Structure formats: structure tokens, C-alpha cells
């Protein structure tokens, strides 16, 4: 009992810190401590000092609950704990832990409210904090929205500090020397005489005493790891082929499976004939799963071949069959009946446009696949008492609950082994592949079965980035942008995606207008309206959702107006923006690129774009050259401000990686539909960016913004409009539809 009481108080400490600056409404209930999941299954002599640190006589385990899909967050989480715990994180075991409300994500929910991230006013902040409590109550533990560092940077450091001070208290109790005379270093408590006691040796005693609750986080000036270049903890494994991903699980007696689903996603199956498939070498069985059929075989290759041999009578789904019809449905939805939000409405746009010379332009962004390089996969072992799942997922609690529902077991009987992902870009915010793997394994209790989607299945049954279009209308005068009206139209991502994995929240679909309504421009007459088109293909969250399309529309149209006004693209943006963080990144990118206008000589062009997404202002300048093989991107300058940078080497990688993701898809990629089916099913026709198209990058993180934010996504959004702007400067051609390869050639 003593230990339980102690842990509860420690959990309370973590919870309290996470909600500093809280909120009056419902404070008692929402600030109640969450239980500590590490209490379950602790052996004698083990201490779970916080939900994030577990110490036994054998070693130290750090719980890093946010999923590593390549963005390096496992390493960053460990470094945040280690900075205060005074351990070498390379010596600790990293464990994603089991899904639990102690690992809820407040930051994602907080950014889903209809206030721009740069709006720090009282109402905006209060509503954000309330949404954080809602996330806590619903245990929405997911990795996404560039939220992990924003959400956990204080919690994890507090966890490290609490554990450290409690270990010192245990040493004090053992030796009679005051805690204030102890220090810690390299996983040891160091006594005044220089003697060192390993943390692992103090674990049992630490578990038996009251925790130290009056910890103070070390200032940045005292950090020895954070903020300095350090080696990612997974870098050696990922450079030597020794990193195992979800798809690499091998279990004794394991069989292999694959899925063949209706190419028209969501359509039913009228019937099938599996005789030919069942007669093939290595095939064990054919079973029905969500959306289609699965083949269980001795080897993935046998399963792939047999899946192709299945004869299936598919029925069509109930949405438009072709891209042309879907574009038309979008265009038809630009009416009051489909109006979903008008979260920006400054001045009087109708009066401003009335009688003015109106500039109008239409923009389009296509469906896009996530196409992570590791195809979707999950390995499942079902028996009467337990379900075990090995997979890479960003929504572990949803997977756990789905497994319980499918098998009739209690969630406590589900064990989830979350493995690193070979990319995600938002795809693993859905769990369709895990549901199928559970259905497959449930047909052979006691036998572990690894289900692997083929690349073709992965592309055909993505939940893609939605089709999105916009119409801009505006007016200029006296060298300035005077009126800006943007209608942005897309099926509702929140309805489609949240409808699958949680519940659809009330209110407008803010994601539909992210990157549009929430930009910090002070245009005198400024309106952004979102229209939610009828559902089409089921859609998903794709790196920088909403903003990856809206930023292209918003910034491209702003560039058109600035050009019409005869103003300088950088100077006019600075004139229109008051937000200090945003101004600084624009000024910085101007300095970095020696900005002197878009004209950089014959056959060349320079473009600029700015986007404020996920709470991070990013400014980007791009230079291009016309060559005899097509347009070549030469240089990219990126200035951004995410506040404190904890992991600088990885932060730079996220900026350049996100920009490459934005550029490569804007240049080269689209998914189109005929007869309800995706026409691009592999990397021969969906390449993204390859090395020969990759420009040189120059990045700067200012580190001056007050709020700490993540960097997985923010540099994606401004990439496409900056490139389009550079191509305009070089060629005089405005590119209003992605991919740009439909209109120009690239070298």
C-alpha cells in the first residue's frame, strides 16, 4: 500500500506540471492524477519512479511513448529524461510502453481549436488548455501533429528530475548524509567523499520512500546534452542493418499472410473463388477480412502470388468513380450549403472588391499517397487468454481497443509491442492493417502470423491526402495588397479520419482550413472560407494535413497579388505581418539568401513563401535555373522558429526532410482514380523526390519563440508555393495545379 500511495503522489506531480497555467472549469476532475501503468507487473525490488522511468537492479528503462516513425523522437524523448536524470541514455533500454492515459497527448488536441497558433490571447489559450484536458480524459495517446516535443518536453524532464532527486533521497536515507550534499553523475549518486552508488543499487530503497516533489528544472545554460549536437540513439543500428522494424518480426512457427482488398476502397465483395489460390505452393488458407480476402502461406512471396490468383467479384463503393467526377463534385460544393467555416473575416471583403479590378485564380492539389517505404505490416498471435501484436503504429490505444473488441478479450489482455516504423507521414494514424492482421491471426489461434501488404496494396488502399481546390479573389492598389478572399474546398478530413478512429468532434473542420485562415497577415479586407465537399474516397492525415494544400493556395495567391501590386514579395509580407516570431524568420531568410528581389538573372528565378503551421513560422526562399533538361532547383534557404531546440542535428534533418517531401510531391506526384481504383500503384509512377533532383539546403532555427514546438511537419507547407513562385520568376508561368510536372519539365 505504501508504494501505491507513493506512486500516486509522483504521478500527481507529473500531472500538475503538465497543466501549469491550467483552467478554472472542471479543475478538480481533470487535474486528478492518472494511474501509473508501470505499477502493474513490478517485481520486488523494482521501482517505477514515474510513468517514464523504471529502474531495476538490472538496469534503467526509459518509457518513450511517442512513436518513432523516422523523425527521431525516441531519441529526443530519452535525451529529455536523461538530461535531468544524469544518465547516458545509450546505456538505458528504451521502451515505447503500453498504451495508457498517462501518456495522453494534450498538444495535438490543443492545436485543433479554431484559433491560430500565433494567437496567444486569453480566450485562445484557455480553450487550448481545455482541449488538452479533453484529450487526457479520452486517453488519446497519439503521435502526430508535430506535437511530441511540445507536449512532453517539460513532463519528461520533470520525470528525470523527480527520479534523480528521489534516488538521492534514498542514498541519503541509507548513508545518513543530507541529500543536499549529494550529486549525481552517469547513473550514480555521488557522495561527498567521492563514493558512487549506482541507481540500480538504490531502486528498492527509492521505491519505499516518499518521492521528492520540490524539483526545479535545470536552466538551458546548465544542459550537458540538450541543445547540443548528439548522436541519435538508433543511428548505429540504422547504419548497419541491425534495426528491426515492424515488418521484420520473426517468431517461432510464424506464418505469412497478405491481403487483397477491393480496389474501390470501401466497396463490398459479392463473391469469390479461391480454388486456384488454394492449389498453389505454400498456401495454407484463404480467409475473409475487412475490405476483402487474405491468404495465409509459408512465405510472403507465396502469399503475394496466391493473392493475385484469387478471383473476386467486387462491388463498387458509393462515391464518384473517377478523378474528373471528384473534381466536379468539389467545384459544385463551393456554395452556402457546404460552407463549413469562416474563421477569418477581417474588414469587409465584398465592399473592398466591389468596383475594384478583381484578380481571380483557381488552384488544385491532388490526392497523394503516404507511401512510406516500409509497407504496412503487423504480426499477431491470438490465443484464448491473450492477444499479442507487433507493429508500428501512432495510435496504440486505438489498436489495443480494436484488438479487444475483435477478440472479445479485455483490453488488459492485449499486449502491444510497438516497433519502429520505416516511415509513416501520417499513414499509421490509421489501424486498418492491424485490424486485418488480427482477423487473420484469429483464424489460427496459437500460430503467430505476419501480415504484409504488397506495395500495390499499400498504394491502392492508402487513406490519401484529400483532393483540394481553392479560388482566390483579391484587389491591390497603391503598391499594396488591399483585399484577399480565399474559398478552400475539400472533403472533410476530420469527418473521414476521426470518424474511423475516434468520434467526429463538433464544430468546424479546422484541418480543412489549416494553412489558410490561420496565417498572421493583417490584410485590411481578408476572408477565408472553408467548404466541406461530400465524402469521396476515405482520406487521411498526410504530413502537414490541410496546410500542405492550403499553404500552396494561400501563398501562391498572395504572390499573385503582390506581383500585381508591383511590390517586393519579401517586403510586402513583412509589411503585412505584425507577429514578431513570423517577421524574424522572414528577415532571417532574406539575410541568408541575400534577398534582392525575384530577378536573379536570365534563365533563373527566385521564389519565396511563408507558412505558420503547427505553431512554427517558416520562411523559405528557392532558386531555380532553366536547363536544357528542364527546371533545376539549385538552392533552398529555410528559416524557422520552433522555440528551444533540444536536438539540433535532428531538427535540421526534419526541416530539410519536410521540405524535400513537400517539393518532391509538388513536382512529381498525384493519385488519380478510374473505376474507383487508384491508377498509381508503385514507385515507377509515384516517385517523390530522388537524389538527382535534390537541391542544396541552408537552414537556420532562430530559437527565439516563447513556445516550444515540433518540426516534423512545418517545413512541408511552404515548399510548394516557394517553388511555384521561383518558377514564375524564371518563366513567367504561374503554376496553379500540383503536380507541377503536368505543366513543366524538371531536370
Amino acid at each position: 500500500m505504501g508504494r501505491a500511495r507513493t506512486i500516486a503522489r509522483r504521478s500527481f506531480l507529473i500531472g500538475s506540471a503538465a497543466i501549469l497555467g491550467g483552467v478554472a472549469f472542471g479543475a478538480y476532475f481533470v487535474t486528478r492524477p492518472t494511474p501509473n501503468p508501470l505499477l502493474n507487473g513490478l517485481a520486488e525490488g523494482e521501482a517505477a519512479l514515474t510513468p517514464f522511468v523504471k529502474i531495476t537492479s538490472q538496469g534503467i528503462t526509459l518509457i518513450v511513448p511517442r512513436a518513432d516513425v523516422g523523425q527521431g523522437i525516441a531519441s529526443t524523448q530519452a535525451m529529455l529524461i536523461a538530461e535531468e536524470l544524469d544518465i547516458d541514455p545509450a546505456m538505458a533500454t528504451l521502451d515505447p510502453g503500453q498504451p495508457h492515459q498517462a501518456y495522453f497527448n494534450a498538444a495535438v488536441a490543443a492545436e485543433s481549436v479554431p484559433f491560430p497558433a500565433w494567437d496567444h490571447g486569453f480566450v485562445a489559450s484557455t480553450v487550448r488548455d481545455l482541449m488538452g484536458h479533453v484529450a487526457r480524459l479520452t486517453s488519446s495517446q497519439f503521435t502526430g501533429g508535430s506535437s511530441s516535443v511540445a507536449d512532453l518536453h517539460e513532463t519528461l524532464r520533470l520525470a528525470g528530475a523527480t527520479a534523480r532527486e528521489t534516488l538521492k533521497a534514498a542514498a541519503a536515507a541509507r548513508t545518513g548524509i543530507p541529500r543536499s550534499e549529494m550529486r549525481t553523475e552517469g547513473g550514480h549518486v555521488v557522495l561527498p567523499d567521492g563514493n558512487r552508488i549506482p541507481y540500480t543499487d538504490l531502486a528498492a530503497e527509492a521505491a519505499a520512500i516518499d518521492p521528492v516533489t520540490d524539483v526545479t528544472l535545470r536552466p538551458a545554460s546548465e544542459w550537458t546534452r540538450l541543445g547540443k549536437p548528439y548522436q541519435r540513439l538508433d543511428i548505429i543500428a540504422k547504419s548497419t542493418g541491425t534495426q528491426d522494424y515492424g515488418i521484420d518480426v520473426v517468431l517461432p512457427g510464424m506464418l505469412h499472410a497478405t491481403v487483397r482488398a477491393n480496389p474501390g476502397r470501401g466497396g463490398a465483395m459479392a463473391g469469390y473463388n479461391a480454388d486456384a489460390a488454394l492449389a498453389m505452393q505454400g498456401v495454407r488458407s484463404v480467409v475473409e477480412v475487412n475490405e476483402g480476402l487474405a491468404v495465409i502461406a509459408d512465405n510472403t512471396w507465396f502469399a503475394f502470388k496466391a493473392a493475385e490468383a484469387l478471383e473476386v467479384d467486387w462491388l463498387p463503393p458509393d462515391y464518384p468513380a473517377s478523378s474528373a467526377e471528384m473534381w466536379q463534385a468539389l467545384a459544385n460544393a463551393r456554395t452556402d450549403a457546404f460552407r463549413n467555416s469562416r474563421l477569418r473575416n477581417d474588414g469587409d471583403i465584398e465592399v473592398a472588391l466591389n468596383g475594384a479590378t478583381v484578380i481571380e485564380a483557381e488552384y488544385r492539389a491532388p490526392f497523394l499517397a503516404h507511401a512510406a517505404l516500409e509497407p504496412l505490416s503487423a504480426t499477431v498471435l491470438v490465443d484464448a487468454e491473450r492477444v499479442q501484436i507487433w507493429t508500428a503504429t501512432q495510435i496504440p490505444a486505438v489498436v489495443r481497443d480494436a484488438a479487444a473488441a475483435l477478440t472479445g478479450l479485455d483490453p488488459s489482455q492485449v499486449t502491444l509491442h510497438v516497433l519502429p516504423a520505416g516511415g509513416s507521414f501520417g499513414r499509421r494514424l490509421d489501424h486498418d492493417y492491424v485490424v486485418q492482421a488480427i482477423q487473420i491471426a484469429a483464424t489460427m489461434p496459437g500460430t503467430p502470423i505476419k501480415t504484409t501488404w504488397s506495395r500495390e496494396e499499400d498504394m491502392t488502399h492508402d487513406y490519401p491526402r484529400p483532393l483540394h481546390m481553392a479560388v482566390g479573389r483579391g484587389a491591390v492598389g497603391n503598391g499594396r495588397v488591399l483585399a484577399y478572399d480565399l474559398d478552400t474546398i475539400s472533403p472533410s478530413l476530420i469527418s473521414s479520419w476521426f470518424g474511423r478512429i475516434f468520434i467526429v468532434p463538433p464544430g468546424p473542420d479546422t484541418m480543412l482550413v489549416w494553412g489558410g485562415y490561420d496565417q498572421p497577415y493583417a490584410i485590411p479586407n481578408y476572408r477565408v472560407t472553408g467548404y466541406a465537399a461530400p465524402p469521396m474516397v476515405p482520406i487521411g492525415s498526410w504530413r502537414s494535413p490541410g496546410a500542405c494544400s492550403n499553404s500552396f493556395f494561400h501563398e501562391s495567391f498572395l504572390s499573385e497579388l503582390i506581383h500585381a501590386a508591383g511590390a517586393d514579395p519579401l517586403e510586402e509580407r513583412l509589411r503585412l505581418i505584425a507577429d514578431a516570431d513570423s517577421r524574424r524568420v522572414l528577415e532571417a531568410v532574406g539575410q541568408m539568401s541575400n534577398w534582392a528581389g525575384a530577378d536573379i538573372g536570365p534563365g533563373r528565378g527566385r521564389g519565396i513563401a511563408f507558412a505558420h503551421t503547427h505553431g512554427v513560422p517558416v520562411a523559405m526562399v528557392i532558386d531555380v535555373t532553366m536547363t536544357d533538361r528542364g527546371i533545376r532547383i539549385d538552392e533552398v534557404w529555410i528559416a524557422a522558429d520552433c522555440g528551444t531546440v533540444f536536438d539540433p542535428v535532428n531538427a535540421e534533418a526534419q526541416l530539410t526532410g519536410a521540405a524535400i517531401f513537400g517539393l518532391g510531391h509538388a513536382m512529381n506526384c498525384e493519385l488519380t482514380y478510374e473505376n474507383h481504383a487508384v491508377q498509381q500503384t508503385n514507385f515507377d509512377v509515384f516517385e517523390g523526390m530522388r537524389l538527382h533532383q535534390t537541391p542544396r539546403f541552408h537552414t537556420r532555427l532562430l530559437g527565439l519563440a516563447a513556445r516550444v514546438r515540433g518540426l516534423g511537419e512545418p517545413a512541408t507547407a511552404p515548399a510548394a508555393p516557394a517553388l511555384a513562385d521561383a518558377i514564375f520568376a524564371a518563366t513567367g508561368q504561374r503554376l496553379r495545379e500540383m503536380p507541377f510536372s503536368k505543366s513543366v519539365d524538371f531536370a
Partner: protein
Amino acid sequence: MDLTINGTSHSVDLPDDMPLLWALRDGLNFSSVKYGCGIAQCGACTVHIDGQAVRSCQVALADVWGEITTIEGLGTPDALHAIQAAWIDHQVAQCGYCQSGQILQAADLLARNPAPTDDDIDAAMSGNLCRCGTYPRIRAAIHSAASAMREA
């Protein structure tokens, strides 16, 4: 059928037309050889056969013409190859799924061309897809590895 992989002989009982990729992954548990596309468009499954980089998804088991090297045969965490050391120094990997293939492709390049230019690197490496966008660091790491190998 016998395969020599990283200097060790392995016996497999699998059909002649099975791609080497799947014989290595599911038959012999060489999980460092990755499946990405199955049509030679991503390079994640790259191995060496007699020192030459090939896409193992396109080589039928019966057609394997020589000794196979996977990334484990290039170097290990305790005994890194110069290219792996450069990959670590530059912290190239993000998700890392493509990197074994990238490193084996770079090894093929540097064996043929000890001082590649950026254009040489573009030509040799553009068949290896990286969805995370680690290309700037791949370029830098290849230049570093080239100098280290020339000086060795």
C-alpha cells in the same frame, strides 16, 4: 539450393523462381534486406552479388550467379565499414528503412569510382528512393567515405 551469404554457406529449399529478396527475408531471416516495391524502383532490397549492387527483388533464386553480400557482410556495429562510419558521422538515417540499400549502392559506386563528383553520385544513387528525404546527408556521407577510403 546453396547460397553463399557474407562468406557463409546456407541451404534453402525454395522454388527456383522465388525472388532472392524473399528467400533472404522469409527463408533465411536476413531482415536487413528490405521489401519496398518489388519492381526495382526503390533499391531497399539491394545486395551485392560478386561485389556488384543488384536489386534482390529482381533476381530469381535459380539465377544467383555468385556470392551474396548483405549489409552485415560490409560491416557490423563493432567493426564498421568506412561508409557506415560516414553514415553515422553525418547522421544520415531518419526512418532508416532504405539505408542498408543506400549504403550497399554507395559501396558499389566507391569500388568503381573512388572520387565521385556530385553528378557521379546523382547518377549512381538515384535508383535508391528515400521517402524521408535524407539525400543531402547521403551526398555528404559519400564524399566523406570516399576521402576516408582513399586515405586508408
